[in-house]
C-alpha cells in the first residue's frame, strides 16, 4: 500500500503517528505569491533537522493557472518525489475538488472554509480554515491580504504538524532578509494561523514533525544555481543565452553571483561578459566564437533551443571548438509541456546535427554534481576541443534539493592542448588537425598568438591536417577516423559510472540523472518489501566505458530506468553492446514520462511486476 512508516503511539491516544516521513502538497493559483510561504514551511522543517525536498509543479503561465508545491519530509533522507500526498493544503477553488478526490484514504486536508470541501468524501480528515477572513485581522490592504493568507496556512500547518514556531520565525527572517516590516507582518500571519489551529481544530491525522539532527551543514539549492556556481568557480568568462524555461534561472543565477564575486578588485570591471542573444542560433554561435578565441564559454537552453543549435553544434564538432551547453530538459516534442520534466533529449542531443556527429554528454544526478560538472564540462570541452552537453532536467534544475555543502575546487583547470607562441616555436611542422599524440586530439592555437606560423583557417567544410580545404576522399576519411579516435579517448576521460553492487543480486538496475533518487529509494523498497536485491550502475556520461558491458554481463536481467517514452538510453546501450547479442536479451526498460518527476513507488511496482509476472 503506502510507504508510510508507522512509528510508535502517541501517549495521549491510540492513534499511530507518522513522524518525519510524509508529503505536504499546497495547491494554489500561479502568481498568488505562495512561493515564499512554501519555502518558509520547507525551511522550518529543514531547520528542525529533518531532511526535506521541494518540488514545484507549475503551469506555463504567469498568473491564474493552478500550481502545486510539494514538500517531502523524509527521516531516511529520500529526496525523490513521493507519489502519494499525505496532507493537502487546498487554496485553489479551480482544482480543490479534484485534488481532494485524488488523495488516498486517511490523508489530511487543510482548506479554505468557503470552498466547502467536506462533502467531497468521508475517508479523509478535513480542517476547514477561513483564511480570507483571518487575513483581515492581519492587514487591511486587500492585495497584501492575499499574500498573507498564504502565510497563515504555514501557521496552521505548523501547529498541526508540531513544527516549532521559533523555526518558522527564523525561516521568515531568512526569507525576507533585512525587510523588517515584511518580517513583522508575516510573523503576525503565522501567529494568527497557529492560534486558529490551536483553538478551533482538533488534530485527527497521524502526521508529525519531530526534531532530528540530519541537516546540520546541509544546504538547500536548485540545480541551476548549483551549475551556475560550478561554472563561476571554474573560470567561465563568456556567457550567452536566450531565455527559455527551465534553463533561464541558470544564467540568471550566474549573473547574480558574478556581479558579486567576479568583479576585478583593482579596476571594478567584470572578468566576464554576458550577452542575451537574439535567439539560440546566436547564443551557440557566440559560444563557439568565444571558445575558438580561447574563452571558457557556455550557454544554457532547453529542447527547442537545442533543436535550433543543431547546425552550429555540427560545426563545433567538425571544426573542433570547445563549447559548453547546458540542456535543462523539459517535455517535448515541440513546445511540449514547457514546465514539466523529462529525459527526452538523450538521443537527439547525443547525435545532434547532420552527418556523423556525436557528442560528450554529462548527466548530473544531484545539485552537487551540477556544481562539479560546472567545472568538468569545461575541462572536457577544452581537452577534447568539442561541444560538451550537461544534461540536467527541469526537476533537477528548478526544484529545491538538500545537499552537503559544495567543496571548493582546489585542482587547477585543464585548458587542453593550446600552443602559445613560445610552445609553437619548439614545434616542427605544426598542423592544426594533426594527431601527433595518437589520442586523436590535435593541438590548437588561439587567434591573437604572436607567431608567424600560428594562424590557421577554421572551417566546417572538408579540411586536412593543416586546416586546408580539401575534398579528397582520403583526407575526409582520415579526419573522420581521427575524430572517432578522439571520441574513443573520451570514453575513459569522462566521469565513469557509479557502481553499487550487492552480493547475490540477480538483477541490475541502470539509471542516470534525476532517475537516481527514485532508484535509491526503490532499491530499499525492493529489499524490504519483496526481498529483492538489485545492483545498480549509474551512468554519469556518454560515451560509455567498459564498465557498462561488465555490469550487464554479471546479472540475469538488467533494467534501464529512464524518463522518456522511447527508452532512449536503452537504445544507446543496445548499440554499444551490439557485438554481444547474448547480453541484449537481458535488457529491458522501466519508463516514466508523464511530466512529473519519477517516484520510487512507481519504479518498485513496475520492477515487481516484471520480475514476478502474474501467472
Amino acid at each position, binding site marked *: 500500500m503506502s510507504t508510510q512508516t508507522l512509528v510508535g503511539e502517541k501517549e495521549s491516544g491510540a492513534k499511530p503517528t507518522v513522524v518525519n516521513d510524509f508529503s505536504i502538497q499546497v495547491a494554489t493559483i500561479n502568481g498568488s505569491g505562495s512561493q515564499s510561504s512554501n519555502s518558509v514551511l520547507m525551511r522550518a522543517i529543514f531547520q528542525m533537522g529533518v531532511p526535506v525536498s521541494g518540488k514545484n509543479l507549475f503551469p506555463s503561465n504567469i498568473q491564474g493557472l493552478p500550481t502545486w508545491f510539494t514538500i517531502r519530509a523524509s527521516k531516511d533522507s529520500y529526496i525523490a518525489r513521493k507519489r502519494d500526498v499525505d496532507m493537502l493544503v487546498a487554496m485553489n477553488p479551480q482544482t480543490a475538488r479534484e485534488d481532494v478526490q485524488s488523495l488516498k484514504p486517511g490523508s489530511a486536508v487543510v482548506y479554505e472554509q468557503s470552498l466547502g470541501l467536506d462533502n467531497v468524501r468521508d475517508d479523509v480528515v478535513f480542517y476547514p480554515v477561513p483564511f480570507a477572513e483571518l487575513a483581515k485581522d492581519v492587514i487591511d490592504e486587500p492585495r497584501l491580504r492575499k499574500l498573507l493568507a498564504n502565510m497563515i496556512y504555514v501557521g496552521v500547518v505548523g501547529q498541526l504538524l508540531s513544527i516549532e514556531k521559533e523555526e518558522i520565525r527564523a525561516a521568515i527572517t531568512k526569507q525576507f532578509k533585512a525587510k523588517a516590516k515584511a518580517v513583522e507582518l508575516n510573523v503576525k500571519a503565522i501567529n494568527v494561523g497557529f492560534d486558529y489551529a490551536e483553538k478551533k481544530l482538533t488534530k485527527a491525522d497521524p502526521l508529525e514533525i519531530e526534531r532530528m539532527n540530519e541537516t546540520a551543514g546541509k544546504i538547500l539549492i536548485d540545480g541551476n544555481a548549483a551549475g551556475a556556481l560550478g561554472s563561476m*568557480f571554474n573560470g567561465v568568462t563568456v556567457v550567452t543565452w536566450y531565455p527559455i524555461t527551465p534553463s533561464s534561472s541558470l544564467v540568471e543565477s550566474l549573473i547574480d553571483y558574478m556581479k558579486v564575486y567576479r568583479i576585478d578588485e583593482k579596476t571594478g570591471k*567584470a572578468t566576464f561578459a554576458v550577452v542575451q542573444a537574439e535567439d539560440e542560433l546566436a547564443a551557440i554561435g557566440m559560444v563557439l566564437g568565444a571558445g575558438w578565441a580561447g574563452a571558457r564559454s557556455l550557454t544554457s537552453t532547453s529542447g527547442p533551443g537545442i533543436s535550433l543549435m543543431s547546425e552550429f553544434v555540427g560545426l563545433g564538432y567538425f571544426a573542433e571548438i570547445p563549447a559548453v551547453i547546458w540542456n535543462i530538459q523539459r517535455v517535448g516534442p515541440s513546445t511540449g509541456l514547457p514546465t514539466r520534466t523529462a529525459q527526452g533529449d538523450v538521443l537527439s542531443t547525443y547525435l545532434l546535427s547532420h552527418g556523423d556527429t556525436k557528442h560528450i554528454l554529462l548527466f548530473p544526478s544531484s545539485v552537487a554534481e551540477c556544481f562539479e560538472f560546472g567545472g568538468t564540462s569545461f575541462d572536457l570541452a577544452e581537452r577534447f576541443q568539442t561541444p560538451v552537453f550537461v544534461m540536467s532536467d527541469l526537476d533537477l534544475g528548478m526544484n529545491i534539493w538538500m545537499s552537503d555543502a559544495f567543496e571548493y575546487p582546489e585542482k587547477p583547470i585543464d585548458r587542453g592542448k593550446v600552443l602559445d607562441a613560445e610552445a609553437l616555436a619548439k614545434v616542427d611542422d605544426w598542423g592544426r588537425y594533426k594527431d601527433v599524440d595518437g589520442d586523436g586530439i590535435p593541438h590548437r592555437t588561439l587567434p591573437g598568438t604572436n607567431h608567424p606560423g600560428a594562424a590557421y583557417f577554421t572551417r566546417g567544410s572538408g579540411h586536412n591536417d593543416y586546416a586546408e580545404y580539401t575534398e579528397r576522399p582520403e583526407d575526409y576519411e582520415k579526419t573522420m577516423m581521427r575524430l572517432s579516435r578522439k571520441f574513443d579517448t573520451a570514453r575513459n576521460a569522462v566521469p565513469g559510472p557509479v557502481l553499487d553492487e550487492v552480493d547475490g543480486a540477480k538483477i541490475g538496475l541502470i539509471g542516470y540523472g534525476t532517475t537516481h533518487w527514485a532508484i535509491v529509494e526503490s532499491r530499499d523498497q525492493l529489499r524490504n518489501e519483496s526481498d529483492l536485491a538489485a545492483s545498480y550502475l549509474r551512468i554519469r556520461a556518454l560515451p560509455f566505458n567498459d564498465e557498462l558491458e561488465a555490469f550487464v554481463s554479471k546479472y540475469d536481467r538488467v533494467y534501464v530506468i529512464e524518463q522518456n517514452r522511447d527508452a532512449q538510453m536503452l537504445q544507446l546501450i543496445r548499440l554499444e553492446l551490439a557485438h554481444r547479442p547474448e547480453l541484449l536479451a537481458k535488457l529491458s526498460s522501466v519508463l516514466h514520462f508523464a511530466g512529473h518527476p519519477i517516484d520510487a513507488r512507481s519504479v518498485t511496482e513496475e520492477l515487481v511486476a516484471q520480475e514476478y509476472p502474474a501467472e
Partner: protein
Amino acid sequence: MSTTAKQPPAPPKKVNRLGLAQADYRGKPSTLCKGCGHDSISNQLIKAFYEYGVEPHRVAKLSGIGCSSKTPAYFLSKSHGFNAVHGRMPSVATGAVLANRDLVAVGVSGDGDTASIGIGQFVHLLRRNLPIVYIVENNGVYGLTKGQFSATADLGSKLKTGVVNELPAVDLCGLAVELGATYVARSFAGDPKQVVTLMKGAFGHSGTAVLDIISPCVTFNNHAGSTKSYTWGKENEELIQDVGFVPFFDEIDVDYDEGEAKKVKLHDGSSIILKKLERDYDPTNRRKALELLLDSDEKKQFLTGLIYLDTKKENLIELLDVVDEPLATLPLDRVRPPKSALDDVMESLK
C-alpha cells in the same frame, strides 16, 4: 669572389611601418571565377591592411557561407580565419571579440548571407555596435548556388534567364544606419581607390563599420538588365563626397578650406577627410543619412561614399565594462573566486 664586379645596391624593399611588405598580407590563391568582384575587394583589403600597418596576428577574419565568404582564405594568411555557417558570422564574431577584445575583427559576408538567412544576426550585430569591420560583397545574387536572386536585387532587375525580380531590395546601409551601426559606407568594387580609403577609415573606427560594396558576379549577374554589373556600376556611380584618409601615424597634417572639406577625427587618432562635390552632405547627421538613402532609392541613384559616422557611441565591449585584458587568457586566480566566496554562498544556503 673578390673578382666579381661590384653590384649596384638592391632597390630597397617596400615595407610599411611594421617593416612588412604587401606580400606579407596576401592569402592563398583565389578559387573564385576570374574577374569576380570579390577578388578585387580582397586585393583592396590586402592593400589597406598593408598601408595601415596592422599586425596580421591581431586580425581575426570571419565569414559565413558563399563565394564572398570564401575570400578570407585569399588574404592575410598570417591571421586566424573562421568560415562559419551560412548567415551566422555575426554571432561567431561577437563571441570571438568578447573573448579577446584585442582582436581586430574583419567580417566578410555576401548579400545572401547577410540580407536573407543572416538578417537576424546582422541587425543584432548593428544594435550592439560590436567593434568589427563588416564587409558585404553585394552582387544581388547567390553566387555559390548558381545565380538565384538575393534580397538586395533591385526591383525590376533581370536574371540572365530573363526572370524579373518583383520584390523591393533590402537596403543594407539603411538598416545599418537605422539600427545602430556607427560607420556606414557604400562603395563599388570597380572603384578600388574609394574602397581602400573607406576600409582604412573603418580600421580607425571603434564600433560596427558596415561597408556595403557592390561586387559584380561576372558569372551570374553581369549582363544587361542587371543593376549590379560592372557596366551598370561604372555608368551610374555617383560619389556622395570625395573621401580621403590620414592615418594617425602620418605626421603631415593637411589643411583644408572649411567650406570645401570636413575632417572627422576617428577613435585611433586617424582622420577621415570628406571633400565636398555636388552636394553639401554631413554624414554625422543620422536623420540626413536616412533621408539621403530614401531619396536615392526613389531616384534610383547609385550613391557611394561615407553615409554615416558616429564616433561617440559606446561599443559593446565598453558597454559591458569588462577588464582591459582578453577574457580568454585571464589567469585562474582572476577567474576563480577565493574559497571564502564559496563559504559565503554556502552559508547563505544553510
